[in-house]
């Protein structure tokens, strides 16, 4: 119903029917909140997206309170949900100063930002792996002051209204970012007040700031598409607004893809670009920026074939002019900005079959870079590098290494490899060790978004997904993250064209093909009188994860330092992997709306706190066997005593300046913890990390009838397995005899109670196979979902001759209460190159299956 029409109707009728208006007023009074008992105010996990119209089980609700443990230097959010039985016609939210436990220091209220969550309708779920449902999702977070000014501080009866509280622990920097004034660590307490006019509600606040600092220098690189059509939402198409978006991204530790919307390319324009780059790059939170990409048509002669091709290239003259200006500005300001410049130009060349263009682009880039190098060598005075051979060498290296920062969004491809130095696959291209090995030699590793359960920016995906990205990048040394567009405010038509829209908040989030919220992470601030964009819960979650990346990164640096000092071999990545294993596997992120993420984050904060202590505790190695035993190597400096579950750990060895302790945790309880503590300088440090739930070992006898015919019919029998497992006397294994086939695979089905009984809390299965053959065998596992009959690829593994341990990550199957697995198919073959059309008869032995619980 449009407002005009409604008002007009009211006007016409109202002239005659004044009494009706009075009646309406009465009705309004009856339907509005009059007492506290009519409003439920509750807390829940900050990682949850609470839908506007959904009725939630009481089990996820807690007493309204804010209780947070945070690192110094980060932002962290909490949320309160208001669910009234009747309409709320007006309410306000007020933050107050928090007081430190010392009784004097104040955490000022202006460091607590209050936001109203705004909801967008999702009518179709495209991220089906999330198990998400349709409905109104919170996304934009509108500063509450603006909500009050524009009279949006109302709530409809029986709807949920989320309020986000963002606590800002970042230090204040001086003008040149060389000194920071950090917030005092410790426990602060205070309150938030909700005022409904007919009653008030105070929410207690406890904020514990640890003496663990999040680096204010951003150690990750990003390219976030920033030249979207934001102008119509903002009603502001100027450099001011472009800068506002750039700054907003930098505030989120992200980098824009462009600093300007258009370029003339003359000297003034080039200087403007260099000055603008410096304006932002001087802030250490801005770790990189992109060269302005403008197209030109180039006729290029392939040096190998002499073939002339016409292609659309980046504008060479503009690129080189900008590079020269960046070098000059860098020298002038003593800040090497060349090393911080990136570009993403060649987009998905393999899938678009653009080999010739990719190759030509590579040579064109080389020519441009070598031209600049030659200029530095021959006319260093043009760059302010005369009489400065070290500076010349530095910038020559920086220019030449630009090829390592010339991002090509594509998965590795052997044909293209000579012409691509910086692959940027979708995150699902970093999932397996084999995939990651393809990028092992890449100097700067990048990936970009994908679909859930992989890192995904779309609206229906839980905050845990975006928040886990930083953790995944830390584990796999991925330095760069790319997202294609953050501020497109139009509706995708085709061929990279967008139609205007005229409703930026209330419309359907479906603006891009088969995805919700794709292409925008900001909403316009213009209609709220703001000269900055309105942010989203998605950006908040992403930044939280990037801040956790910094903690992990710092942890790794500390470990490396201690490793060098002690001469011991630290398996740092295993520690990070161990922490992250509760959140993701490969790059698949577990879809869990429970306490797991916060517990894992808590473990990270504790570990960082312990590492920062005088004892410098490090979890230097973590190993997990296939049967639920986790073994940790823990370093402590000096003679500090380590305790596990309160008991002194005696299994230790002395190293250069301390001890390395060995701690074992068996997954024998429903919940299992690595629970370490030590005391130093009169202070007790603790480290608690969830190891996971109890494991269950299912021996071979459990499956004697579970493998049945699909393509072939296996003959199953229980046999003595001692020959294959000599150390385990009396063991029985399941022998699977597979007949020969005229097809490339021997396909069998794994079904029965075991499969049907798999639950969401089952994280993974480990199958112990014995391959008695002399050759490798490949098995591809696919799971069939009962509710939709779709087969989902789980994994493909190779069984080498002898004992094999096969891990099936069940997150790929997204098992939910309504989405159980009907059966697994096993495609068994020695047909590695896909050329055989027949398989010989062979035997295969299965010893047991170990079931892991979260």
């Amino acid at each position: 119903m449009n407002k005009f029409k409604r008002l007009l109707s009211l006007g016409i009728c109202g002239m005659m029917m004044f009494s009706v208006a009075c009646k309406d007023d009465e009705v309004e009074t009856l339907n509005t909140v009059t007492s506290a008992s009519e409003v439920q105010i509750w807390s829940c996990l900050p990682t949850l997206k609470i839908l506007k119209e959904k009725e939630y089980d009481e089990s996820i609700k807690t007493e309204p309170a804010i209780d947070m443990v945070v690192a110094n230097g980060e932002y962290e959010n909490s949320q309160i949900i208001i669910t009234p039985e009747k309409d709320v016609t007006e309410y306000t939210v007020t933050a107050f100063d928090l007081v430190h436990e010392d009784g004097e220091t104040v955490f000022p209220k202006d460091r607590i930002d209050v936001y109203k969550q705004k909801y967008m309708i999702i009518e179709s779920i495209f991220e089906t792996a999330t198990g998400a449902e349709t409905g109104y999702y919170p996304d934009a977070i509108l500063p509450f002051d603006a909500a009050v000014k524009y009279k949006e501080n109302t709530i409809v009866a029986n709807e949920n209204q989320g309020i986000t509280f963002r606590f800002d622990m970042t230090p204040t920097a001086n003008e040149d970012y060389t000194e920071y004034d950090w917030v005092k660590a410790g426990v602060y307490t205070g309150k938030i007040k909700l005022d409904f006019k007919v009653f008030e509600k105070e929410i207690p606040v406890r904020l514990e700031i640890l003496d663990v600092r999040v680096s204010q220098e951003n150690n990750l690189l990003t390219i976030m598409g920033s030249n979207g059509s934001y102008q119509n939402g903002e009603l502001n198409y100027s450099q001011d607004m472009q800068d506002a978006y750039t700054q907003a991204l930098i505030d989120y530790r992200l980098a824009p893809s462009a600093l300007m919307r258009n370029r003339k390319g003359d000297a003034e324009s080039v200087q403007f670009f260099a000055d603008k780059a410096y304006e932002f790059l001087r802030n250490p939170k801005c770790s990189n920026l992109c060269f302005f990409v403008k197209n030109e048509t180039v006729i290029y002669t392939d040096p190998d074939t002499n073939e002339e091709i016409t292609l659309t290239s980046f504008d060479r003259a503009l690129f080189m002019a900008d590079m020269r200006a960046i070098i000059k500005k860098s020298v002038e300001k003593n800040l090497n900005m060349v090393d911080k410049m990136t570009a993403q130009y060649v987009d998905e060349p393999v899938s678009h079959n653009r080999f010739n263009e990719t190759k030509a682009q590579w040579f064109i880039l080389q020519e441009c870079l070598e031209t600049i190098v030659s200029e530095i060598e021959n006319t260093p005075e043009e760059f302010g590098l005369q009489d400065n051979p070290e500076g010349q060498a530095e910038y020559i290296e920086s220019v030449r290494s630009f090829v390592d920062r010339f991002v090509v969004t594509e998965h590795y491809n052997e044909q293209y490899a000579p012409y691509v130095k910086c692959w940027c696959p979708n995150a699902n291209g970093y999932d397996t060790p084999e995939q990651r090995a393809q990028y092992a030699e890449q100097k700067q590793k990048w990936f970009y978004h994908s679909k859930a359960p992989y890192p995904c920016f779309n609206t229906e995906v839980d905050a845990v997904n975006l928040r886990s990205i930083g953790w995944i990048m830390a584990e796999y040394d991925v330095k760069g993250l790319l997202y294609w567009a953050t501020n497109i405010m139009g509706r995708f038509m085709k061929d990279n064209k967008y139609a205007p829209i005229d409703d930026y908040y209330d419309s359907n989030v479906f603006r891009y093909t088969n995805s919700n919220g794709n292409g925008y992470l900001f909403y316009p601030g213009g209609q709220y009188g703001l000269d900055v964009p309105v942010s989203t819960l998605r950006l908040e979650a992403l930044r939280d994860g990037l801040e956790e990346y910094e903690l992990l990164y710092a942890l790794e640096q500390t470990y490396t330092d201690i490793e060098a000092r002690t001469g011991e071999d630290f398996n740092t990545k295993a520690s990070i992997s161990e922490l992250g294993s509760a959140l993701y596997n490969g790059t698949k992120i577990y879809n869990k709306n429970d306490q797991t993420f916060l517990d894992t984050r808590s473990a990270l904060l504790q570990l960082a706190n312990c590492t920062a202590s005088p004892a410098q505790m490090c979890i230097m190695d973590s190993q997990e066997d296939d049967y639920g035993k986790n073994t940790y190597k823990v370093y402590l400096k000096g003679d500090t005593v380590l305790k596990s579950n309160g008991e002194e750990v005696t299994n230790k060895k002395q190293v250069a300046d301390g001890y390395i302790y060995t701690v074992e945790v068996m997954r024998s309880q429903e919940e299992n913890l690595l629970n370490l503590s030590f005391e130093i300088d009169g202070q007790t440090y603790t480290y608690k990390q969830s190891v996971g739930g109890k494991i269950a070992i299912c021996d071979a006898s459990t499956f004697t009838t579970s493998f049945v015919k699909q393509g072939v019919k296996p003959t199953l029998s229980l046999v003595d397995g001692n020959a294959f497992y000599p150390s385990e006397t009396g063991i029985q294994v399941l022998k699977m005899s597979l007949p020969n086939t005229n097809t490339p695979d021997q396909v069998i089905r794994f079904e029965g109670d075991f499969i049907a009984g798999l639950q969401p809390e089952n994280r993974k299965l480990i199958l112990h196979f014995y391959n008695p053959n002399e050759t490798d065998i490949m098995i591809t596992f696919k799971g069939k979902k009962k509710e939709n009959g779709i087969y989902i690829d789980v994994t493909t593994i190779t069984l080498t001759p002898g004992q094999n341990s096969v891990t099936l990550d069940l997150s790929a199957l997204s098992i939910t209460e309504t989405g159980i697995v009907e059966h697994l198919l096993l495609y068994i073959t020695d047909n590695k190159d896909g050329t055989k059309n027949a398989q010989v008869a062979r035997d295969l032995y299965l010893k047991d299956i170990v079931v892991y619980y979260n």
Partner: protein
Amino acid sequence: MKTMKKLLSLLLVATTILSFGACKKEKDSAGENAGATVIFRDFENWGPDFQTTQLMLNFGKVSRNEELEFVRSGAYSCKIQPLGTRETNTKPMLYWPTISTTFDYDVSDFKNLDYISFWMYNASEEMEKVTVGMVTGIETVDKISTLSGDTFSLPSKQWTQVRYYIDFNAAAIASKVTPEMISNVQGIYLQFENTQSSYVKDAPVLYLDDMKLCYKTKDAEIKDAFVLEPNEICDFERVFQWYTFKPNIAYTGSELCIPEVKVVKASEHDIATTSGQYAMQLTVKSGTDTTSTKQPCVSFIKELLQRSDFTKIDPKDYDNTYFSFDVYNVQEEQFRFYVWFHADVTATDENGQPINPYVFRTEFDFYAQPKTWTTFKIPFSKINSASYIKDQKHRSVYNESAYAKIKTPGEFNLCWLEKDTVGGDKVFYVDNIRITQG
């Protein structure tokens, strides 16, 4: 509440003044609005008044003004700070759509619209200008098609009432107008001067209020001014032809090389035309890159070919029929031009991806000889045998057999190489674009 009051008072005071809201949902026929005045934007509400506003390239800023000094009626007006920037040569433009499904209105039928009226206050120290016109097509969020409008002066420090009379028969726009277009005008635009700055602080400050649509009692009669002589494509003698070409930024790599084009009386430039009195004066702007193969160009609208005899030529005559035109080269040296023909087809490639094919033949080049007229002739048979190429992004040659060319012509471009422009601006005259035989 203020809007309600305003609408009520409008209803009570004058029955011929309709609120914008009254015209929504169903498309208004000319008859319903006959003689009425409809408030199109009074800027009292964010939606639709502000929320539907669409800004074109580097426009600047639009915001809600609450200072009553700059409000004509009600509580608010629209504050406009147009920019344009030095990075582009475009004039800042905004428009308001005449149709919105979100706000449930449709006032796109301009058949009997007499004029558009609004008030503007120019708060800057200098006289400003505003051009008002109609949007005839909304292709994308940043690409629209428009009809030439009228320009009004806005004296400093005062309110000015602007009345833009709708005259579809005006020569300046008649070349593009069709009866369907008049019943389906997509928006009303305002265009300002380019300030050469990117920052709002440098923009003039203007206020807009009370934008109304004022209707006549009967529909407009449209005459088709687009009339060509046999074999004529464009000889620049008719006024509508003066609006059929423009510098094409899309194909021009460097803004430095965007040409200047205008129609001139040849006798005033000491040259004799090959036909009539008028010719197109083309100033090729100098670039700086002696290696650049970018192609600046002038584009001619597709209607020139589509409404000429171009499509009517019998294929058996293609070998003896030519696309011809004359170029006078003022310089002492010869200069090379190219011609690109586009096809007006919408198609998909083998992967189902949309393509926008055009014909590109390097053979269609020629040298304009110095100090004389050079006649250039392209055989229809060559045009018809040219290969399609996908859009700039894909660049691969596309199978031409699926699409007609002579029968479905699009726009055509007169182009040159940027590297050939280095050394100074160059002046040419183009005349008598036509079809010739033999």
